[in-house]
């Protein structure tokens, strides 16, 4: 499977270095290695979701309870989570850290991913959610640190878009 195992490990290590102790996830192809790493890590509380919006609630609960968390999902999961992001994370000032695989961009071969790929950044802009792309391994640790710092300073959601060149070995 051409999902990048080394880059998935770099992302996982960066999450651990940030002190993330709870990860809620809805698996998708690009995230398989990350989910496996979390499953095999006895220090990580992994919550496998039925739908991504649940993860917004779970991260809010974890934050109020004093545990650092992140929500890992596909961009279509971000689209499915919008009310939770607005009515919980933004309304209640929750520093929600979202890692979003950006399907449907340049290089995408699956037609069904392309509509979501085309609107993801516009939706983030409309929601006034700051985001950066992670496109190369060198981006990962510093941008994750910056995203986490901004989320916690602003008490608002922040997103990192996992790009194809990072996640997929074409």
């Amino acid at each position, binding site marked *: 499977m051409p999902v990048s195992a080394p880059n998935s490990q770099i992302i996982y290590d960066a999450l651990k270095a940030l002190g993330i*102790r709870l990860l809620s996830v809805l698996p998708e192809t690009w995230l398989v290695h990350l989910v496996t790493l979390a499953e095999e890590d006895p220090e990580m509380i992994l919550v496998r979701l039925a739908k991504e919006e649940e993860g917004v*609630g779970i991260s809010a609960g974890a934050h*109020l309870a004093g545990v650092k968390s992140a929500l890992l999902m596909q961009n279509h999961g971000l689209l499915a989570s919008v*009310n939770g992001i607005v009515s919980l994370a933004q309304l*209640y000032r929750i520093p929600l850290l979202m890692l979003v695989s950006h399907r449907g961009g340049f290089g995408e071969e699956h037609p069904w991913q392309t509509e979501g790929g085309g609107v993801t950044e516009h939706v983030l802009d409309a929601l006034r959610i700051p985001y950066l792309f992670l496109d190369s391994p060198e981006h990962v640790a510093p941008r994750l640190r910056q995203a986490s710092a901004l989320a916690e300073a602003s008490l608002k959601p922040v997103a990192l878009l996992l790009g194809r060149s990072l996640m997929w070995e074409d």
Partner: protein
Amino acid sequence: MLRVDALRAIYPELSRCIVVTNMGFAPAELFSLGHQQGFFYLWHSMGLASSVGLGIALSRPELQVVVIDGDGSLLMNLGSLTTLARYRPANLVHVVFDNEVLLSVGRSFTTATATGTDLAAMATAAGVPRTATCRTEDELARAFAGALAARELSTLVAKVDPVGPASYFIDLHYLESRFQFQRYLRQLRPAASEGGPD
């Protein structure tokens, strides 16, 4: 059974728990019985009370968490029952007040529980190990005390009349509630695992 009477029947135990409510009239009724620092009222974010409760329960296994939910709210996040059941936190009791309507919209639009949807049966089918449907204050009080004593994930559906208070208003801004609740959970933290500032 009135929801406020049902809440009153379990209030002595609730007041010692970490409680997350859904939106609508239930938080106003709980607040009217007496606010506690461990109560968090989730205005809006319809459906997510059970997810917030799960996040707290998994993060802090030493706390007893109670989620106050409603039929309309739970129907909006039914998948949450399967996620609760998958992780089965022993420190979470999920109480669903089922009045069979979307009461807070001002006219009694029925939910699917009015036409046969059985939320306790759905929780059982999702894998929640302990479920019950309660029709009186005594039944609920017994089931609630039993669930706390059993230390087992429980979904208790309390069938209540479609009646609420005159107003949603509670004299606690949602952000004040949020920061107060977070501070209280921090103070309850065992000294050994003291975290940094926010």
